[in-house]
């Protein structure tokens, strides 16, 4: 059993309290935080390398056998997501050196705790432990959202927290119902037990499964559960918002995980119970997201709705629950995480260069580094809107292709493409105002614009944008990996066998 599997959780879990102990030394804090993030990245790469062989590796915490203790599971999917998180975290950590980390208290501790929560949610193989890590992730995100204060952030924060508390409540109801019927919490064990549930309890089980789906859908900002996202992410400090780009994906990840492993093809009375709900909701999400992009008057709002829109695309792909769909969904997950984060960082970089105009989509005097900013924005917008040659285009292509067998293929194509056009319109309007129209504004404007030119934050944004380019260039190899991941998801038997081992038949064994 490789202890490295628990490392993505333990590293930040130790880094954060250490950061508390050195809270009076900001420079040391930065070093500790960066070092922990770098370590996390290294571990993420190593774990990915480990998972690439297709073996499912369980990690039995406390040496207790599954399903009695808590088990972490490293498979292709969790390794991919952990690596993605680490990559994103590295960029965000770099960006926060902008001075963001000093705008309030405990930024780095909260940041590390947030990473711990995300990684825990990605690695755990236990539904209640998933709840716990969701809470860790959420409460850290509350802290990060509120970092630096300000009235908007507080209002948005209250909404975000309140809605998520209802989500947490729902999570407990769902877990309770599922436990009440099956008597277990371990996902692999659930996969076994759920398939054996008889008709008498099917209604309860289905209700539990659907409520669980709603919990994840809330995190994934699926309409009509998306309300919190535009306000919260728009109000969040840029690095926080960028880090949050992964949180919606954790929601999507959980849908993929739970509804392939437990309530997938072998889900008995609750097989594919969520599938009929996802597609229509995802299509509406696309529409709302695109409308929001077009409606936004402020850059960061536009980015927020673009994120909603991208979640719609992603979940359309998820809804098929087949190899092509999951491959597309996973690719889109990688893509939209990187590009969402990049756009949040960029919108902040742009806003800081525009003086009192900030992110307002109105002409202002031309900003410092307008060329560079414009270029980055152009690339990021292309990627987000799904125009070639960046990853958004590839992702869209894959989703459209995956939709082919669906009975609603026509609708899916129409809505995906039509909303793409709307998003293109929105981004082109924003870009022309920010970079072109602004250049046209009288240069002799009395108000000098600020000149924040620091390398670290720029590097972070550039790295993320280049990430989408790399995803596009290496779409073939990446997709092959993701295809293998999708295949692994669609065949839960090895997962179940790896986690439960021979315990299924062997009575009550002692500690491993």
């Amino acid at each position, binding site marked *: 059993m490789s202890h490295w599997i628990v490392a993505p959780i333990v590293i930040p879990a130790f880094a954060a*309290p250490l950061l508390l102990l050195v809270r009076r030394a900001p420079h040391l804090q930065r070093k500790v935080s960066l070092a922990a993030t770098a370590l996390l990245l290294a571990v993420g790469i190593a774990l990915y390398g480990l998972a690439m062989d297709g073996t499912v590796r369980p*990690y039995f915490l406390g040496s207790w056998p599954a399903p009695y203790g808590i088990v972490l599971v490293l498979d292709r999917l969790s390794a991919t997501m952990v690596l993605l998180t680490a990559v994103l975290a590295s960029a965000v950590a770099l960006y926060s050196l902008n001075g963001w980390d000093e705008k309030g208290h405990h930024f780095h501790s909260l940041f590390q705790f947030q990473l711990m929560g995300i990684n825990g949610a990605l690695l755990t193989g236990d539904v209640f432990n998933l709840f*716990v890590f969701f809470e860790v992730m959420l409460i850290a995100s509350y802290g990060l959202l509120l970092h630096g204060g300000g009235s908007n952030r507080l209002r948005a924060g209250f909404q975000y927290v309140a809605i998520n508390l209802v989500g947490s409540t729902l999570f407990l109801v769902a877990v309770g119902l599922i436990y*009440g*019927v099956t008597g277990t919490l371990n996902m692999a064990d659930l996969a076994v037990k759920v398939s054996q549930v008889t*008709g008498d309890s099917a209604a309860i089980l289905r209700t539990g*499964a*659907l*409520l669980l789906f709603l919990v994840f859908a809330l995190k994934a900002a699926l309409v009509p559960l998306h309300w919190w996202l535009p306000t919260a992410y728009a109000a969040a400090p840029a690095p926080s918002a960028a880090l949050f780009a992964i949180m919606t994906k954790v929601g999507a990840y959980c849908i993929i995980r739970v509804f392939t492993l437990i309530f997938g093809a072998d889900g008995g009375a609750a097989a594919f119970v969520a599938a009929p709900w996802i597609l229509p909701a995802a299509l509406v999400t696309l529409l709302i997201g695109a409308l929001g992009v077009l409606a936004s008057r402020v850059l960061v709002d536009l980015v927020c709705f673009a994120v909603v829109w991208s979640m719609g695309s992603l979940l359309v792909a998820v809804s098929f629950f087949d190899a092509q769909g999951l491959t597309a969904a996973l690719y889109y997950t990688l893509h939209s995480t990187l590009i969402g984060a990049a756009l949040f960082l960029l919108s902040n970089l742009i806003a800081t260069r525009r003086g009192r105009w900030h992110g307002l989509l109105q002409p202002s005097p031309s900003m410092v580094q307008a060329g560079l900013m414009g270029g980055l924005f152009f690339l990021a917008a292309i990627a987000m809107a799904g125009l070639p040659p960046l990853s958004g285009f590839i992702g869209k292509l894959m989703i459209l292709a995956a939709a082919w067998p669906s009975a609603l293929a026509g609708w899916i194509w129409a809505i995906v493409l039509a909303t793409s056009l709307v998003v*293109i319109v929105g981004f082109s309007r924003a870009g022309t105002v920010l970079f072109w129209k602004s250049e046209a504004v009288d240069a002799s404007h009395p108000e000098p614009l600020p000149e924040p030119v620091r390398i670290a934050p720029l590097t972070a944004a550039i790295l993320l944008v280049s990430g989408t380019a790399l995803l596009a260039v290496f779409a073939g190899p990446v997709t092959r990996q993701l295809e293998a991941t999708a295949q692994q998801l669609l065949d839960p038997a090895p997962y179940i066998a790896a986690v439960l081992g021979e315990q299924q038949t062997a009575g009550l064994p002692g500690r491993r």
Partner: protein
Amino acid sequence: MTIAFLPLIPLLGALFPPLAIKSGRNVCALVTLLPTVAALVLLLAAAPTVYAGGVVRAQYEWLPQFGLSYSIFIDGLGLFFAGMILGIGLLIIIYARYYLSPKDPMGRFYAYLLLFQGAMVGVVLSDNILLLATFWELTSLSSFLLIGYWRHLPGGRQGARMALVVTGGGGLLLLAGLLLLGRIAGSYELSEILQRGDMVRASPLYVPMLLLVLGGAFTKSAQFPFHFWLPHAMAAPTPVSAYLHSATMVKAGVFLLARLWPVLAGTEIWILIVSLVGLITMLVGAWIALFKDDLKAILAYSTVSHLGLMTMLLGFGTPMAAVAAVFHILNHATFKAALFMSVGIVDHEAGTRDIRRLGGLLYLMPITGTLALIAAGSMAGLPLLNGFLSKEMMLEEAAHAAYAGNAWIVPALATLGALLSVAYSARLAIKVYLGPVRSDYPHPPHDPPAGLWLPVAVLVAPVIAIGLLPALVATRVVSQTALAVIGGEPLPIFKLALWHGVTPALLMSILAFAGGLGAFVAWSALDRLRLSLPPPEAKRIFDATVSAAVTGSRAAIAALHTGSLPRYFAVIVGTILIVGIAGFASGSYSPGMRPMLPVNAPAFTVWAILIATCAVTIAAHGNRLLALILSSMVGLGVSLAFLQFSAPDLALTQISADVVTTILLLLALNLLPRTTPRETGHARKFRDGAIAGLAGLGIGGLAYAVMTTDLQSISSYHIAQSKPGGGGTNVVNVILVDFRGFDTFGEIIVLCIAALAIYALLESSLRGAAARRLASMRQGIEAADAHPLMLVVVTRVLLPLVLTVGVYIFLRGHNLPGGGFVAGLVVAIALLMQAIASGYEWAAMRRRINAHTMLALGVLAAGLTGLASFLFARPFLTSTFGYFHLPVIGEFELASAMAFDAGVFLTVVGTVLLSLSQIARVGARAERNPVPEGPSDIRFPQRADAAVSAAAPTYRQED
């Protein structure tokens, strides 16, 4: 070098001009020329193979799983178009070097130009239709940049956006169409698809696919009714217009029709749609061109018209028409590029492009004038020029074309198109170059430097050459290209010649020529006619559509995202209800047989109290303090329920957590409004009541449904293993610190984060608006003593006693109800009592450990306990325990789980102290009068508090 690099050379080359511009404009232009020349050389190197009937290919996998590969091939059509793109591109680069003013950022211009060039080459050389779609969208993007190059011009920005929206949107249609096509044909490789035309045309999906592809082609080629974007794109610098609208961008649509001709063409619907759209476009474009005063606008609409002509030819679906189309593509590219450039020269030299302000330029700038007149002549279709030849071919094809069974309508309208073409060409030529020399040009015009006119001359050369010696110059190209267009079919016999005898085409041509001149003469009358017609609406409709979409989406988003939490909650809870009910209804259910427990009196009482409390809370929640008291009641009831149903640990945890929550809420309520205003509106209350009632019914019903069934749970293992495996008899505690210790690890981290977040939140409230509001906060009547003597004395006595209880609860937790969490809360309660009785500062001063440090140590202690198992090569959090024996003391147990629990304990104490002391600190800001310093407000002479202060540890500021 492989031809795979052909599109990439310009694309990558685009990186360099912006860097080179620092070395001067000539270097920059050279750097731009280099990749173009390189690509051209690479292309021409393939020409011999292609002209020998071969095809050059290169293929790399990109996304094979989804049919996307990087496949490049050069056949006749690709070679023809790529040659045109690169060749004219070369001229444009030279021309632009002299055209752009020193103020224009030339590096950027060339970068965009190369991007565009690469994308165009990619479109025409793609052997994979998805790759084609990729490059297709890239041309939209790069043309967006080119059209918007002059950012200061509002027209440029709007034009660029419009072009992007129309062509980019068309690109999306095309993408869908090509995906469909690939599905139908079973391959995305063009060379394979081209073999499967019959299969494609027989597919039931042929029509939707065709419509989508045509949507892409028509938008790109500015076909009616999408023609409106093209003239607005003329805001771009002239080299851009010359490039985009003569040889490249707009031709992409025509290229696509030609490329897919073997697969798509020939069906009835193809002919009906394509030829009609082409015909209409030809007429509409020409008609509008006739009345424009801006030279570029004339050329733009003329381009629209000529694109319509080509589309119409391809739409006829006959091989001969295809040959004509190819020939006209070539001819149009030459004369139109030359015309655009010459207009640029005029604009550059005379300072205006307005036809009304020009005239007689032939005499002032003879070189330009001559070249322009020749090109215009070709556009008009004058004999001896190449435009004449292809127009003849067109008319010939039109003469034989029947549309929907009608034999004369196409020839008539085609002749009308030719007529208008003659008319606007004449107007352009005569009004600008001929006629009297004027004295009021904005600039005195004269011939430009050779750099500007030489490219024009280079283009005019083939105009004449083909016009005079078509067979010699053009046959090879046209036939090879046409062969590629018509695919497998045999190339029809055609002869490129000046004289075909008296054919219908000749008659039509003469008619058109005469009529055209007539129209030119009668221009004013025609103009009056035009003015009496309704004005063209396309752009207005487009603008109105976009702005309506923006307004509409703003209204929709504003209506949906009101920012109202109650509304969001109503929607969310409603969704949960709907999905939950649907989920339940979709499965089968029958109640279980589990025997129910009999109701007893205490339980019933607690139940009644809970229900009553709920009711009173709903009715009286406006009084916040009352609501708080009621919620404390509920907490008591719930913990009693836990106690009743054999969960002592839960009862202990619930009440101790509740009291801290209550104190926290009281601290907050001190600074919040004391009452909640009554809400108006019974409908609203009814709605909320209905939602709440349904939710309650649902969850209560589910709980009951589950409780009627029996449960086989994994927890029998926990019960069995608790003592032998976990070393404790309190199974709940062993689960918490051992079986599921990882949950608890997460849980204390939640607490730690909560404390940190609270700390950070409140720390910032000591500044800014919040601080001002705090300072101006008016308190109600207050008691004079902040620290009543009796309270102080009793809590002080209680402190060691309660701490002892805390230790007791901690130590017994593993075996009996209790544990680190409850113990932590008990200790926190003991310390809180001190703070309440004697004041925050007084109590904080006496605490020995900083709450931050306590938090950190708590998490670290728990984590290190987990990590310690690595030393024994066991997974994280593997516990161990042992029984030890000491003299006097006897046997006792030590378990690593206790160290873990100690971490829990520390975290809990730290969390409570940090949060509550922080909020108390904020509350202290609202004090009007200085609060007497603790411990008691009443001092007795013999009691020397002063001495104590000296002995006490120094005051700790939490940070």
